[in-house]
């Protein structure tokens, strides 16, 4: 399963133009200053944000192609998506949040809940499965969002700053969980502000600035030889 995309999105004065290929089980980390287009890139891949031009191919299947006018709606893409800030369904319990995707696609409630509990346990949230999700702390909510993305048996993972609110301990736990699921062969795009996430998880790092790829390489290579001021600052933060 390979994710191959050329994403062009133009909105007002902002323009994003990026090519990317993520192989089976590969993790591409995307970093960049605020407003560089990280979230737009991720949301374009989910189908939420329409492409101005370009294509998105997943394992040979066409999700988007502006030359033929093809676009698969977000609900049929079977991607594991965690958007920024978690965005849980506040009126539902943590368990129902995680079970939401499978249930929406017709899995029986009991089965979906059992699977949800397993994922929540994996992420250290077994005790909070029944809690209303708007009562969870920021870090707990973020882990529920990761579990919710994994629960749909996705063909690829798209995670927008999934570890931002996590403390050191839960962060490494959550990284391990993501790593395990990626290892089953999921191409993964990880938007992050922390080079450590990239160094720990990613095979490739894309530094995005002003909607363009400013630098690409292994996370270590970028850390060792940053090409832009932003990359240098990010590298200095972990040195």
């Amino acid at each position, binding site marked *: 399963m390979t994710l191959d995309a050329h994403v062009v999105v133009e909105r007002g004065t902002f323009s994003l133009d990026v090519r990317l290929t993520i192989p089976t089980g590969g993790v591409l980390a995307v970093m960049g200053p605020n407003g560089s287009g990280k979230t737009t890139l991720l949301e374009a891949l989910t189908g939420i944000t329409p492409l101005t031009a370009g294509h998105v191919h997943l394992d040979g299947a066409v999700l988007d192609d502006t030359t033929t006018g093809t676009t698969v709606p977000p609900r049929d893409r079977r991607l594991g998506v965690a958007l920024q800030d978690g965005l849980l369904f506040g009126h539902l319990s943590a368990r129902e949040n995680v079970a939401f*995707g499978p249930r*929406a696609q017709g899995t029986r409630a009991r089965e979906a809940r059992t699977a949800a509990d397993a994922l929540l346990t994996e992420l250290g949230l077994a005790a909070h499965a029944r809690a209303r999700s708007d009562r969870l702390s920021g870090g707990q909510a973020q882990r529920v969002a990761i579990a919710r993305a994994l629960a749909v048996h996705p063909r690829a993972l798209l995670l927008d700053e999934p570890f931002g609110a996590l403390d050191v301990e839960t962060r490494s736990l959550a990284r391990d969980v993501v790593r395990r699921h990626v290892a089953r062969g999921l191409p993964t795009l990880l938007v992050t502000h922390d080079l450590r996430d990239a160094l720990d998880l990613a095979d490739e790092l894309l530094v995005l600035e002003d909607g363009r790829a400013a630098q690409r390489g292994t996370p270590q290579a970028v850390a060792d030889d940053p090409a832009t001021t932003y990359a240098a600052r990010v590298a200095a933060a972990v040195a």
Partner: protein
Amino acid sequence: MTTPAATGAAPAPTGAGASPPPGAGRRPNRHALRRPPVGTLVLGVLAVVGLALLVLPLVALLAATPWADMVDLVADPAVVGAMRLSLVTAGCTTAVCLVVGVPLAWVLARDDLPGGWLVRSLVTVPLVLPPVVGGVALLLLLGRRGLLGSRLDTWFGVTVPFTSVAVVLAQVFVALPFLVLTVEGALRGADRRRALVAETLGATPAYVLRRVTLPAVAPGIAAGAALCFTRALGEFGATVTFAGNFPGTTRTVPLAVYLAMDTAPEQAVAMSVLLLVVSVAVLVAMRGRWVGGLPGRGRTRRGDR
């Protein structure tokens, strides 16, 4: 930390603001503390007058209420009948408004609706229209010689005017906009990004509406239903024009009150108090649920950053 650094760094601006030419700047300040400026005073008086206009009539009503005879007056079969009719029709109206009003609100809340402004205007017209005009219009549509009414009569032998169904239709006409606009506001306030997340999880629009959007706007729907019910309960003009004033079938409490003002003023007062109590009770009950309805609180805590 602020004291030495701040005063040292910026003595000029703080000094200028805090100590103006001695006496000159201080007097108006002290003056302002003791006596509010005339403008504020006028506003306050006008506000009190406004409140009095709303409250004094109700005070007069309660003062005139024959509390001792209240039970007897209210237990009168005519009053009981009118009250039952009012509650049943207003209940039906609220149900009808929920069934058709929530989808209408959902359509209106979509930004991609072509001619959305026109639909919204059409929904708003009954809100500003005198109810009597609504009654006339309903009669011209569904009356025996009306646009639709004549067909209904010749084809099915059905006549709508002057029946309890007509009461409900008249109430729907005046109450539906309240529900639609309230729910539309709630839907627009709901976080659209959560609906997008649900979509990426494989949910169809109908599923998103049922399990994400509607629960999130439930307090708004409850508020809209409460407004709708109380408005229906008080409907007079459209009802009397379109449904007439027949005891048992179309004489709701407002109509009975109006009639009784001539013949049995005490009963009119008693029924008025009854309506007041029911209306206020509905508002209080809904308000309690609104405040305790939590989703709003949870929504603002996260996600709105």
